[in-house]
């Protein structure tokens, strides 16, 4: 079975693929809302205070993610963050963040524009290393770390979720089919399971 049979349009077909007998990685789509929050000029402290009050999150600095109440904030650029939360319906998360930030920040719902793929397993870093230029070794990268970089020539926001390790890979939704195909090809060697 070829990778294009696994990936139909933009969804994955459950099953076990690739090499057998090894330690397969798990690949799955993560259904979530994604909202971009950017502080207006000179208002970063106001945005931080607002989100601390409304979502109990301490907005992270470069290369880090922080957990809040029902959401995770990812640093993506100076005074700019992605807020990721389990899918709650159109505009729910963005509306709450907009109400929280007021005129201190720009809040843009990117739930339609970004897609998240999770790869996990003991050999997940091995699979990603075939394309990732960021060092994912546990001595320098770990849970709660974030890196905006490229995988398979596509811009991706990479977040390590746990020590398994599991990584959430956020890409532009229009590229997600191509991205999954490339990721599955990279995982042929270890084998991969689509839940």
């Amino acid at each position, binding site marked *: 079975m070829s990778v294009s049979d696994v990936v139909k349009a933009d969804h994955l077909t459950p099953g076990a693929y690739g090499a057998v007998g090894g330690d397969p990685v798990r690949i799955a789509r993560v259904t979530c809302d994604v909202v971009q929050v950017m502080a207006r000029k000179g208002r970063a402290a106001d945005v931080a205070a607002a989100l601390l009050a409304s979502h109990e999150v301490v907005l992270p600095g470069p290369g880090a993610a922080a957990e809040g109440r029902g959401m995770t904030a990812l640093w993506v650029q100076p005074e700019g963050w992605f807020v990721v939360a389990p899918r709650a319906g159109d505009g729910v998360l963005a509306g709450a963040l907009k109400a929280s930030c007021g005129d201190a920040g720009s809040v843009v719902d990117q739930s339609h524009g970004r897609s998240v793929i999770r790869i996990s397993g003991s050999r997940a870093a091995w699979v990603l290393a075939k394309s990732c230029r960021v060092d994912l070794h546990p001595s320098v990268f770990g849970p709660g770390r974030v890196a905006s970089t490229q995988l398979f020539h596509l*811009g991706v926001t990479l977040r390590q979720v746990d020590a398994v390790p599991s990584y959430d890979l956020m890409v532009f939704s229009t590229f997600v089919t191509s991205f999954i195909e490339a990721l599955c090809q990279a995982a042929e060697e270890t084998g991969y399971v689509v839940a």
Partner: protein
Amino acid sequence: MIRIDCPSCGGRDEVEFAYRGDATVVRPAGDAGEEAFHDFVYRRANPRGWHVEWWYHQAGCRQFLKVVRHTMTHEVHAVARAGDRVEVPAAEHTGVPAAEHKGVPAA
């Protein structure tokens, strides 16, 4: 391959960046005349040695960075945010006189 030590993201490969030109040119005053603007838009020093350049971190933090790069060896001496000042090593290190690599080309 050039490694650029982004102030936000850490060391990254050159492929994540886009070269955005000479960071030493200064826009002339509005009434400086046509010739001054011609030089500002078109004329570059093309130095052999240390050079201050704009590099855009398009695959990372999407920030413009000032990079001090040696045009002959590709060695990167310093990386700073767009608004920060950078230190340029003395010209003696490169064997190129300061006037030659910092100044505008002779007419």
